[in-house]
């Protein structure tokens, strides 16, 4: 038996300390990974929605213009989501049934919301922080071109017409916004004093 240098109690304390330290390292690692993993996950965020609604059918197959439902994209800060009555404009007539003659699930749910006069609780996909004030109308009405192209919905929202369940194509983080805003100015549509494509000072979006 080796000579006792430290008391049993001290040994115990050292072990506990090492254990706590080790646990903290594991915890910190897990936390860090989680944060990074989350960041990567934000592109492609695809929450489940209350209705089996498919943009791929509406915007893809039927070629319905985005503005038919998101009416305010040119007019104000929020593009808006369609009212239940907008859905019912078509779905009063289009009451698709499955092979067994039952109403399709989504249609039945929609009918239910309409009957009860209740809003549909969609889950936000493009959810910005509360201190960010993005304005759809400013982006839709601008004449400025990004790399020679006019700005379209797809620049930020991706190919919605191919999405079954809506997901976040781009991260919508500040760095991503600035990628465009900091490009060289569009000489044709430049405002006096402008040195970037779009304003990059803080109060452009934060207020």
């Amino acid at each position: 038996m080796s000579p006792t240098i430290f008391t049993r109690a001290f040994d115990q304390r050292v072990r506990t300390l090492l254990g706590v330290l080790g646990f903290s390292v594991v915890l910190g690692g897990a936390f860090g990974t989680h944060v990074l993993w989350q960041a990567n996950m934000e592109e492609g965020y695809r929450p489940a929605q209350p209705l089996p609604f498919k943009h791929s059918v509406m915007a893809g197959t039927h070629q319905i213009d985005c503005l038919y439902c998101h009416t305010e994209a040119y007019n104000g800060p929020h593009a808006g989501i369609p009212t239940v009555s907008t859905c019912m404009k078509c779905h009063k007539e289009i009451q698709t049934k499955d092979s067994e003659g039952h109403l399709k699930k989504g249609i039945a749910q929609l009918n239910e919301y309409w009957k009860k006069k209740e809003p549909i609780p969609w889950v936000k996909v493009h959810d910005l922080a509360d201190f960010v004030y993005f304005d759809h109308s400013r982006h839709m009405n601008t004449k400025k071109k990004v790399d020679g192209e006019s700005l379209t919905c797809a620049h930020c929202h991706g190919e919605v017409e191919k999405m079954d369940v809506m997901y976040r194509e781009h991260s919508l983080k500040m760095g991503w916004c600035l990628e465009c805003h900091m490009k060289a100015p569009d000489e044709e549509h430049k405002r006096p004093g402008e040195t970037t494509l779009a304003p990059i000072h803080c109060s452009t979006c934060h207020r």
Partner: protein
Amino acid sequence: MSSNDAHSRAGSDDNASGSPAAFADRPEVMTRDDNPLPPEDNSLTRRTALKMFSATALLASVAGCTRKPKRHIYSMVDRPEYQRPGIPLYYRSTYTEGAFPYGLVVKTIDGRPIKVDGAPGHPLNDGKSNAQIQASIMSLYDPDRLKTPMRGREALTWGQADRAVIQALKNATSTVLVTRGLLGPSERELAKRFLAAAPGAQHFVHEPAADRVRRAAWKAIYGADGEIVPQFDKADVIVSIDCDFLGTDGNAIANTRGFAASRRPEAGVLSRLYVAEGGMSITGSNADHRIPVRPSDAGAFVLALASADGGKAAAAKYGWDAKLMAALVADLQDVKATGRKAMILAGAHLPASVHAAVAIANQAVNAPLAWNPAPATLPASDPKDITAALDAGPDVAIFLGVNPVYDGVGSGMGQAAAKAKFSVAHGLTANETLSSATIALPSAHNLESWNDAQPRQGMTSFCQPQIAPLFDGRQEADSLIAWTKALGTSDATTNAAKDFHAYVQARSGFDSRAWQDALRNGFVGSAATLGALPAPVGARALVAAGTAAAAGTMDVILAPHMSVGDGRHGGNAWLLETPEPTTQLVWDNAAIMSPATAAKLGVRDGDWVTITAGGATLDLPVAPQPGTQKDTIVAHMGFGRTLGAGVGCGQGFNVFGLSAGELLVTGAQVAKKSKDRFSLVRTQRAHDQMDREIARGASKKEFDEHPDFAKHRRHIVNNNEQIDTPWDYSKGHKWGLGIDLNQCTGCNACMVACQSENNIPIVGKEEVAKGRDMAWIRLDRYEAGDPENPEVSNLPMLCQHCDNAPCETVCPVNATAHSPEGLNDQIYNRCVGTRYCSNNCPYKVRRFNFFNYTGKTIDTPVEELAQNPHVTVRMRGVMEKCTFCVQRINTAKFTASNAGAELKDGDVVTACQEACPADAIVFGDANIKGGAIDSSRAANLSYHVLEELNVRPNVTYQARVRNLHPSLDQGAKKGGH
């Protein structure tokens, strides 16, 4: 338009953050998709189960830290007409909470009102507002509002309540109806129908702070009921005798507007204001010459104005400044000879003899006074009559929008209210009167009600609801209709009306199209229907040689408070934290007396005194205020609420016990009371400019000799250094703000407007005491000269958006930075709260959120509705300050750009500018040549505060010119240039 077509509450926009109650019972909608619990497995050992448990617990806690909560975005079922997500809609309405039915424009976003301003073109306020109008948003979303009809502690349905009231009315032989004074033509008509239907009914008007005595005096003097409407913009000389016309006496918004219009020295227009007053009011703060006069001596003062000796004898007798009296008398006497106009105004609390003397004096000075033969408010009843009627023990007493149990304690009305066998009280909160009534009924708020009002003959102003009643409130008139119908009436309009909305519309006689137009405009009829002032036929009989006040006694003025009024706004936290303009007290009232009197009594700030008058006693803490006449005490009403005032309960003291309804108490004895000191809290503690020339001013003579005096008050050493900036401010927009100190009266409307617009939290009395108040714009007040009658300067102070901003260079995280448009941006999400910026700010305009004030004060979903969705709600640990209403700048810029247009001067209006009744504030793009800011900066009087620091502020002030009487004008006090 029905009450709910354009104001649907269903649905919400992208900013939906809560979950409507409709989904509370639908777990499948609300369940998180990422449920971390593992599926149950019977084969698990204890060890693995523990492992998994800890792992999932860890993951759940980590996920809880970093992942944003899943948020919903609710579609509307059907979209109300014109409503678009996030885009404000503006509706006109009428303010019915005070004595004057001001026109309103209410900004609603997604169906909820978030900001109230004045309606442009309305004859009473023409687009402008005051602190109380601005704060009405706060009282709408007040969580302390009564939610349902009550009998004692038992909640009733409206049906049960109505049945109980109607039963009592049917069995009654005597009924007393007590209402507030501002009743529109429809409400008056309805009251008449009710009185005819109810057995033995009497109607009284109870307004504790109304100009009851003066109105009765005018009726006797001019031969008919009516009100004098002073035309300030036409007056060259204004003499106010205890008349706080810029503060609480009369239509202060119109008065301020007219007065400010007469104070434009650079345009060569400058009226002269003499104020003779007992307390220091904001009118006195704006005076060119001020004479402290005891209210008891007001009659002698008016008589001295016409005396042959130039007031010399009176000045000697009463201790007034003889030179000043001589100047004033001379000024008035040569008015006719020089073709000028003068007017004399007397305060509402002064006795009839003073008003009679004033009426006679006004005849001699071309007084520009108009006469409104049909005021919007009914004359208030004598409190003694109301008390007598209630003391008789009527079978039913009905109180509509009045609170006599709180404000009628001096006249015995409060105690007499309990003698009614059955009492009904209608009110927004369960206040003192509602709590002691047999049946308490919740009222609908002004912004939830239909109404009409008649501010001028031949002109009707309409009030329409901006939102369906948030709680189960019903407006008082709807109750009257229901009760009148049940009692039985022969009136077809009443019988046909489904509710008061239908009643008002039917009475208007408009078809549906004309009705829509009237609501869109807010009012119909011509505004210019004021008559000429009748001859004061009854004045001579009323003039009495005033008896000198008894020696050793004092006068007590019970003055309505600038913010909380007579107590009806006593539960409004915004108004409670708005400093009283002269004392700058918040959350309290006090016995305001002259420093000399306080010294004589041996009391300091916060010491208690006992005031005894006519058998009543009142204990109040002392607040010495320079400028108060030495035998006068001012005590503000509106405090000391005990019930139904939310955060206002227990703040300050109820002063109504001192008088039986008179606003002036004479013969009072004041003595020191030995008791613990009371802590009075002010937003500003030092009032000396220390020669820093912050609020600059000069006399007329100095201005005439040196029109640019303001530019040479400071010795500037080197103002050439500039902070390195990547921006070229000469291109694009360059925002600037200008404040004309000749116009600003210090009324605080801008403060509350800013609070409403920018989601500024209140912090409470204790936090204000620690200097943690959050107001982005404040009214600084400086006093100079004689401490018993100082010269006062007001200066609105807000972030100066310096081009060489000292705050920006010290921020370690770049949370405050300059924009190319000259704005000093504050980025909340980047701020870590070091507070270096605030330490380095020479103007002390940066505000730090020490605690989560917003979260602390807003704990119900209904209060969240008051927040402006266009402005970030700030958390604790974040610095904040004036942004020049950047949300309004951005909205205006986007609107113009979307339309392919350029911004024009005047397209951006800040909240403070919009509210300012004096039009003292201008805002705009300094790069627009000849625009509002360019011309404000080019003015001779313009200067920057603390310009010697070379911080290059973007707020320009224009120095104030005092139009002293030539015989008293000494010219420059200190050497210019």
